[in-house]
C-alpha cells in the first residue's frame, strides 16, 4: 500500500518544483477550532490555513460547511445594505415638508379629571401585591422544590447534544462534571437561548470538595423548549481563559 506522499508523487512528478505538502488538519481539531468560521474571517495562521484546506478538500462535512457559509455570506453582502439602511437616515432627498406634529402632553394624567381614578386604581394594585402576590412568592421561594436533573460531562465530544428534561414551573438542574485536576481555579459559564441570545453568565470557583461536580439550576420561568448552548471556560490561576466545552442542550418539558 503506497503512502499518501507516494500517491501524490504521481501527480507531483508531472510538475516541476514539487512542494512539501502540509499535513491535513484532523476533523476533531477543525470542529474544536471552529476552523470554518476562522477560515472565512481570515483568522487562521498560514500553516493552519493550509492544513485546514488540505482537510476540507478531503472531508465532505467540512467542505459542505465552508461552501454553505461562503454562500450565505456572499448573498448576505447583497442583502445587508438594504436591511441595515432602513434604520439609517436617508440622504440626498429634497427637504421634508414641515408637518404639524401633535405634541404629547406627558403630564395630562395629573389633571384633576384623571388624577382621582388613577390614584384609586394604584392603591388597589398596591394593596393586592402586599396582601396576596408578595407573600405567595415568598413562600414559594422558601419551599423545597423537586426539579428534573441531567448530568453533563465536560470534554466528552465537541458540539455534542445533551437531552435535558425540564419542568415548566421549576425548571431543571444540570450536574456538570468539570475537570478537577487543579489546572483551573474557576470556571466561566454562559448560556444562550435557542435564538442565540445570551441569557445568563457567571463565574464560579472550582469545587473544593474533590468530586468536581457543579450544579446549575435553571428556573422554569422564561425557559423554553429548544436548543440552548452552554459554554464552559476554564480559568487558570494566572487568569487566562480557555473554552473547554460547548454543549447544545435540547430542552424538553416533561408533560405531566
Amino acid at each position, binding site marked *: 500500500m503506497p503512502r*499518501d506522499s507516494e500517491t501524490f508523487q*504521481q501527480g*507531483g512528478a508531472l510538475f516541476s518544483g514539487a512542494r512539501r505538502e502540509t499535513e491535513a488538519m484532523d476533523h476533531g481539531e477543525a470542529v474544536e477550532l471552529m476552523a470554518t468560521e*476562522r477560515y472565512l474571517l*481570515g483568522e487562521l495562521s498560514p500553516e493552519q490555513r493550509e492544513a485546514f484546506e488540505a482537510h476540507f478538500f478531503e472531508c*465532505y462535512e467540512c467542505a459542505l460547511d465552508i461552501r454553505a457559509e461562503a*454562500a450565505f*455570506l456572499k448573498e448576505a453582502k447583497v442583502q445587508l445594505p438594504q*436591511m441595515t439602511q432602513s434604520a439609517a437616515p436617508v440622504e440626498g432627498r429634497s427637504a421634508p415638508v414641515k408637518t404639524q406634529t401633535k405634541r404629547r402632553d406627558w403630564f395630562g394624567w395629573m389633571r384633576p379629571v384623571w388624577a382621582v381614578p388613577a390614584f384609586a386604581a394604584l392603591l388597589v394594585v398596591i394593596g393586592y401585591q402586599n396582601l396576596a402576590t408578595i407573600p405567595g412568592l415568598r413562600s414559594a421561594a422558601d419551599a423545597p422544590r423537586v426539579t428534573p436533573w441531567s448530568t453533563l460531562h465536560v470534554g466528552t465530544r465537541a458540539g455534542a447534544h445533551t437531552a435535558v428534561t425540564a419542568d415548566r414551573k421549576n425548571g431543571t438542574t444540570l450536574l456538570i462534571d468539570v475537570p478537577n485536576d487543579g489546572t483551573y481555579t474557576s470556571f466561566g459559564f454562559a448560556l444562550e437561548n435557542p435564538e442565540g441570545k445570551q441569557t445568563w453568565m457567571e463565574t464560579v470557583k472550582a469545587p473544593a470538595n474533590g468530586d468536581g461536580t457543579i450544579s446549575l439550576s435553571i428556573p422554569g420561568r422564561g425557559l423554553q423548549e429548544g436548543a440552548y448552548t452552554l459554554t464552559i471556560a476554564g480559568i487558570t490561576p494566572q487568569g487566562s481563559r480557555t473554552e473547554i466545552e460547548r454543549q447544545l442542550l435540547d430542552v424538553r418539558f416533561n408533560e405531566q
Partner: protein
Amino acid sequence: MQFYAFDAGYVEGLCAGDLQTQEHFVGYFTELLHLKLRSRLHSRQAIEDVRQETFARVLATLRRENGLRQPDRLGAFVNTVCNNVLFEHYRANSRSESLDEEDRPELPASGASAHDIAAANQLKGKVREILAELSPRDRGVLKAIFLDERDRDDVCREFGVDGEYLRVLLFRARQNFKAEYLKRMGGGPDAAR
C-alpha cells in the same frame, strides 16, 4: 464523524467522460478552489487560470494508467495539484503580478436553467429570513466586517463584542442555512449519480 469518500466508480466515470460526473466534479471543486484561491490571488483571471490548469492536470493524471492509486483521496489530490499549479503561477508571475487585471468584470454564469434560478431564489429567501431574525446589532457587525471590510478589532470594540461572539454568530447562521443549501445545491459525490 464519518468522512465522505470519493470512490473508484466516481473516478472511472470521470475518466470515461460521463457528463454528469464531470459536471459534478467541476461544480464541487470549483467552489472549493475559489475559496482557496481568492485569499492568494487578487485577479479573477489568475484564479480562473489556476483553476482550469488544476482541472486539466488532474484529469490528465486520472486518465493515465494507474493514474490515482487511491480514488478515495481524490479531494486531497486536487488540493495537491492546485498547490503545485499555484506555486508555478507565483514563480512565473513574480515579476509581472501587476499585469493581473484587478477590475476585470466577472465572467457571466453560463446557461443557468430555470431550476438553478429557482434554487438561487430559494437560497436568497433563506438568507433574508436568517438576516431578518438577527438583531440590528448582529446585522451591523456582519455588514461592517464583510461588506465594509473594516478592521475586525475596531468593529468588535464599536459593537462591544469579541472574536468568539463573531464566530458563534457565523456558526449559527451557517447551521440555519445549511439544510436549505444542501437541499438546493446538493453536494456530495453521490449527488452525481
